[in-house]
């Protein structure tokens, strides 16, 4: 019993000093109103960036089809989500790998920073701009097609934003 008490006291002390007990581990960090405002703002930011990216890649011959977006969970406790949007198309006369390299270069020219790029095990490019992340790669679902996407940062939410999950948005 004494060992248990010592362990409990030590645990409480350790977590108090790190702030865990101040707010509670799983509680939402924001109000429902703040969560609604922040998610709306993040979605708008990502969609605008995605449309810009679609224009840039069209310049190197990749015409993305319909652009769509949606939310996914970052963390369950406290709740947070991120919004991503994307689209894909055929690379024309280029191979997917060649088109992925060209898209990566074009986005770099448009102000994005290449964080990672490579060809193994599949060709890809990862780029960042402010707190957005863009990616380009070959589709697994539609082989031979090249897809491009933009994802925003994780946004703190309240339970009221749970209803956003499972929705698909038309970004075009």
């Amino acid at each position, binding site marked *: 019993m004494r060992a248990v008490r010592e362990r409990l006291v030590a645990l409480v002390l350790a977590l108090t000093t790190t702030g865990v007990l101040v707010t509670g581990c799983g509680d939402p960090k924001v109000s429902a109103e703040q969560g609604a405002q922040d998610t709306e703002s993040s979605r708008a930011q990502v969609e605008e960036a995605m449309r810009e990216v679609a224009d840039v890649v069209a310049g190197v011959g990749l015409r993305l089809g319909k652009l769509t977006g949606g939310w996914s969970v970052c963390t369950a406790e406290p709740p947070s989500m991120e919004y991503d949007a994307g689209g894909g198309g055929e690379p024309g006369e280029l191979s997917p790998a060649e088109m992925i390299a060209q898209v990566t270069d074009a986005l770099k020219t448009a102000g994005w920073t290449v964080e990672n790029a490579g060809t*193994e095990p599949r060709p890809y490019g990862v780029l960042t701009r402010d707190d957005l992340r863009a990616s380009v790669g070959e589709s697994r679902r539609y082989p031979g097609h090249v897809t491009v996407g933009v994802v925003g940062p994780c946004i703190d939410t309240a339970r009221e934003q749970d209803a956003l999950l499972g929705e698909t948005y038309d970004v075009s």
Partner: protein
Amino acid sequence: MTVTIDVPPSQPAEVVRPEGDPGGADTLAEALHTASGRYEEFSDETARIQWIGGWYGDAADAYREATAEAGEEHAAMARTVERVGRAVTAYADTLRDLLRTYEEQVDRKEALDARRSALIADINAATEATPDVVAALRERATELRDDYAELVTDHDDLQRRVREAEDLLRQSFQAGTSLDRALADDGGVPQSAQDALSRRGAPGSEATPEQVHDWWLGLSEAEREAVVSSYPELIGSADGLPASVRDDANRVVLDDDLATLGSKRDDGTLSPTEERVLANAEQARQALEDADAFEDPITGERPGGLLHLYDPGAFDGDGRVAIGVGDLDTADDVAIFTPGITTTMDDTTSYTGQMINLYEATRYNGDGSSVATLFWLGYDAPDAFYDPATATEGRAEDGGRRLADMVDGLRASRPDDPAHLTAIGHSYGSTTTSYAAGDFDLAADDVVLIGSPGAGPADHADDFSVGADNVYVGRDSRDIVAVLGDEGWVGKGPVGLGTDPSSDDFGATRFEAEDVDRADIRNWGDAHSSYLHHDSESLYNIGLIVDGHGDRVNVAEHSYDPWYDFARDPEWDREPSSGVQGESRTRENRMVP
């Protein structure tokens, strides 16, 4: 020479559509649930008005007796109407299935008739009846006859199921028609359901999961429908039954709760306890809608959601729930995720979202095998860090036992087709999982501990039922909770919940799990909660393990403990990645062709 080729007649003459409208049945069920709620409200009210201050004597006694009796009768009536309402809900679900089967049979008959017409045309067009041509035409006629015969058999089966479903609903209504029967404990329960439940191996009779499985196999289709609609709580939590059956039963109870408590909310008569149950039910509904809408990243098909466990009033309102993404009855690879402290049913939607992430990651980087992921909150997780239960590990031990039982149930439900099964525990849930694997012989193939404050009873990965080679650990170097485990004597006392499983002494395989947006200091926020975040190293590696390829994870160096100093984590200085193929890419960009 005349050659005869027997062309089979078109059969059955007509594919008979099951009568009835599932939507209408749903409306009736909702009305019955609302009525049940009204009876309940009356019963609650009689309890409230039984004692009138300052009124004593014979008349007061008679009044109290009368109100008590009226309250009991209305409570009994509420239960019976509720049972009948559930039977109608189950009937609506069955009718939907039957109508789908009917549509399939209509399509099959159209296709067969088209083949028949083509055959007749080819026979009439044949000018040279060579032996080869005749043989080919006869073979087509034989195949057509066989296919018609199969359709006739299936059509007969459909009509039998229609009759059985209607008969079951009739029995449910009749079991509650007289006042005496309506007020009885088994009001609204058909005799066939009562008989089935009295057989050996039935759930609730201390039967093992294997016995429950055999009991289920011994029931007729009609008896199965009867027990699902009459005893949905029992069937919905019975280890050993197919996950699809548990899902059917739990959805009946969920629909009931949403309708009954929803009507009480509309009336303004919800108690605080009921309010919490309704909130839990709404979380389960939202989570199921998300799981049902999710599309497989490779095939685009919807693997569907499963309500594997549903008990929204359990653990003082925290609730017990398990939501699956994918088909637990058939998936090649099954992952079961156990969350940690502070988790309640209020978090169901978020955790189901993480199960969708895990499913997606496993399939995206997978070998093509089918996948199912399950969020399992089947134990009473401590309420907070300062909850004494957090430090005593009692909840972890109890949860470990429950987790091992649940996995035994999954194993028993598909004895001839065992899945590759991975148990994943996060935070305090990793200690719970450690108890399951260390003390209760968890029947998993692989164990993954993430953000672990300690491995509970296990000093070494060898102590786990899966063996050290199948124990994997993910720890973000900035995760404050994951450094609480005992990894040395310098710097902290007996803080955590057992040995730090990421340490070299423990003997598990540690995989890369750094968050690309990690902070400069240890924290309990993103660092502790991002292990299933898309395009993270952690989710990438966990997906490989779930897919059965733990040997391909990107291995991280263990933390270690110099005797003269604090424990060290070599991952602290490594640059993490996000979205990199072969390291941290876990999903497909969105695309509509």
